[in-house]
């Protein structure tokens, strides 16, 4: 990498997986950053969708041609650390720089005591509801999963479906088990997939599926397809999808969002999305620029702008309290639910082998959904698989 001279700005490269409007928004912010001073320059380039981006990072890491920073999921961090090509942000970002960030974003972003991931494009799962059907059936927005299940039974006789999930209900399952107090995989990497409480939580969803009061999207991909057909009361989806749902909802369909119901008196909503990581190959100067860029993104105007334009969650408390953003929420009430979920948001613990675990989880849910495998069996398999994965990667 070229050394910074007084005249030439230090340039860092940034690979991301943002497309279409999100990319436009991102580019706008980056050019703001580049114009805000003359010493640094961020050069961003889109690398396709997230799957493509992952492949590029793998290839670049292998051939040592990584950019300075890249967008990736914090759950990849353990792999990157093991590969030895990612560097902690701590020396460049002081705790004070991050103090305003919602803790949920940072808690699991640290690995082995060091922070590697910087939250970037984050979303939460929310409950979409069909206003008209709700009014018709005289139901209220469910506060708990059991309410949701009962609602499903109630409307079934009218030929309506209670709730639609996406292709896989693993986020919802993750939430439910989290709400039992013992997460699927604990911070100490203890696996609780087939614990009594986890199985009970699993039954909440599988019972609905078996009773046909709930459906999964299958090859439709997203439950919204079902939801739009107007025969489904609720839809569990990502807050990131709200803008798209907005654009494609049929004319007559009136809908709203709410935080996901609670289970056993507890609220927990999983936060998904991507983070930024800094690669070891970057020079010290570049690392500093990267830090500067991250700080820039955390600043109130940028964060609110980002959240408003993309529908992702605002990263800092300050941003959420920002009048501007509150005004935006008032105008876009559907965006509220995700924000309301932030206080009880959580993220999975990251560990080496997490991607394998995720595949196993998705297979388990899939087996329960499409083969009606019993939770005991599916979760039992998941338990042994996950334990083995953790064991092997220790």
């Amino acid at each position, binding site marked *: 990498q070229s050394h910074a001279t007084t005249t030439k700005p230090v340039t860092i490269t940034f690979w991301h997986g943002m497309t279409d409007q999100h990319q436009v928004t991102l580019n706008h912010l980056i050019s703001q950053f580049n114009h805000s001073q003359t010493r640094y320059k961020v050069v961003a380039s889109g690398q396709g969708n997230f799957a493509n981006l992952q492949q590029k990072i793998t290839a670049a890491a292998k051939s040592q041609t990584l950019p300075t920073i890249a967008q990736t999921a914090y759950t990849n961090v353990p792999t990157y650390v093991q*590969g*030895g090509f990612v560097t902690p942000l701590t020396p460049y970002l002081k705790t004070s720089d991050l103090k305003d960030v919602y803790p949920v974003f940072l808690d699991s972003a640290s690995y082995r005591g060091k922070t590697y991931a910087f939250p970037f494009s984050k979303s939460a799962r929310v409950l979409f509801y069909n206003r008209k059907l709700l009014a018709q059936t005289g139901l209220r927005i469910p506060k708990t999963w059991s309410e949701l299940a009962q609602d499903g039974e109630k409307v079934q006789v009218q030929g309506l479906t209670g709730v639609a999930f996406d292709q896989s209900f693993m986020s919802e399952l993750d939430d439910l088990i989290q709400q039992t107090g013992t997460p699927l995989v604990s911070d100490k990497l203890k696996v609780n997939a087939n614990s009594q409480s986890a199985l009970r939580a699993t039954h909440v969803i599988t019972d609905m599926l078996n009773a046909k009061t709930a459906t999964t999207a299958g*090859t439709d991909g997203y439950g919204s397809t079902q939801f739009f057909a107007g025969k489904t009361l609720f839809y569990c989806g990502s807050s990131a999808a709200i803008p798209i749902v907005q654009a494609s909802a049929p004319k007559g369909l009136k809908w709203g969002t709410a935080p996901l119901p609670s289970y056993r008196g507890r609220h927990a909503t999983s936060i998904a999305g991507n983070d930024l990581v800094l690669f070891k190959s970057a020079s010290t100067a570049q690392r500093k620029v990267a830090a500067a860029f991250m700080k820039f993104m955390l600043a109130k105007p940028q964060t609110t702008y980002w959240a408003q334009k993309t529908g992702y969650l605002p990263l800092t408390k300050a941003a959420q309290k920002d009048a501007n953003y509150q005004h935006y929420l008032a105008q876009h009430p559907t965006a509220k639910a995700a924000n309301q979920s932030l206080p009880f948001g959580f993220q999975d613990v990251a560990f080496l082998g997490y*991607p394998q675990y995720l*595949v196993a989880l998705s297979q388990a849910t*899939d087996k329960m959904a499409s*083969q009606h495998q019993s939770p005991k069996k599916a979760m039992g398999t998941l338990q042994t698989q996950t334990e083995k994965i953790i064991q092997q990667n220790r």
Partner: protein
Amino acid sequence: MLNAKPTLKSTLIALLYLAPLLLIVGVFTLWPLITTFLMSGYTHYNYFTNHVGGLGMVNFQFLWHDPDFHLALRNTLFFVIGVVPATVFLALGAALLLNRLPQLATFFRTVYFLPFVTSTVAISLVWNWLFHRDNGLLNALLRTHVDWLNDPHYALGALIIVCIWQNLGFNIILFLAGLNHLDPRYQAAANLDGASTWQRLTNVTWPLLTPMTVLITVNAIITNFKVFNQIYALFHGTAGPANADITLMYYLYQKFYVENQYPVAAACGVVLFGLILLITGLAALYFHRHAWWRGGQRG
């Protein structure tokens, strides 16, 4: 010439002709293959730092014990057996029909070629619709209520149909090129010799088309063993309901790019490679016995 034997000189000359191809294939196919073979034997391997913990059969043992791999293997074999013969015969049939059209041949040829250029996304969406349980055309026509894509019993069949359909255009073009090369005199002679259309096909056209059939069969075996994109598109990024459509290639992809299990993926690649080699070898052997009339000189 006719009975020439290879010499050192002729070998050198031939190598000159082969050099460009060999060079590129060597660098961009053979070399990666070798590294893959090597990687499949690494244990405790750090892909990024290139640290090799040791050598062994661990990765193959992993495959041996992995039920997903078994499923992938079974699905792949089933899929290939389902697709290849159908592909070859349907393409041949369509090419023969297209070849004898007095009118509109251009139009039909273009239409049959369309799926080949139409984007996989559009195709998978349309098939998603055709196969859809509630508002799908297939169920409407068959008066059934089958969830083709989300029922593990049907999902592999659906994939087979889509793959046959999509590769048809490609193979039709090749068969048409092959048919074009046939000398019409043989058809005329057979016609006079009293051969019916069917007899002409089985006794004259088909044997004379052997070179093209070999090509298409071998190619179909290879591409279908490596099927991946169609699965990915048709099942929205998954391997079908309950892994019903997981194939070796999908397994490999998942292990490599999703689960970061690089040596396992390499081992799967080796198995896949060996398997295709075996089956293609058998097919080639079969055809070889039927094509030796071309004479020992060339062939």
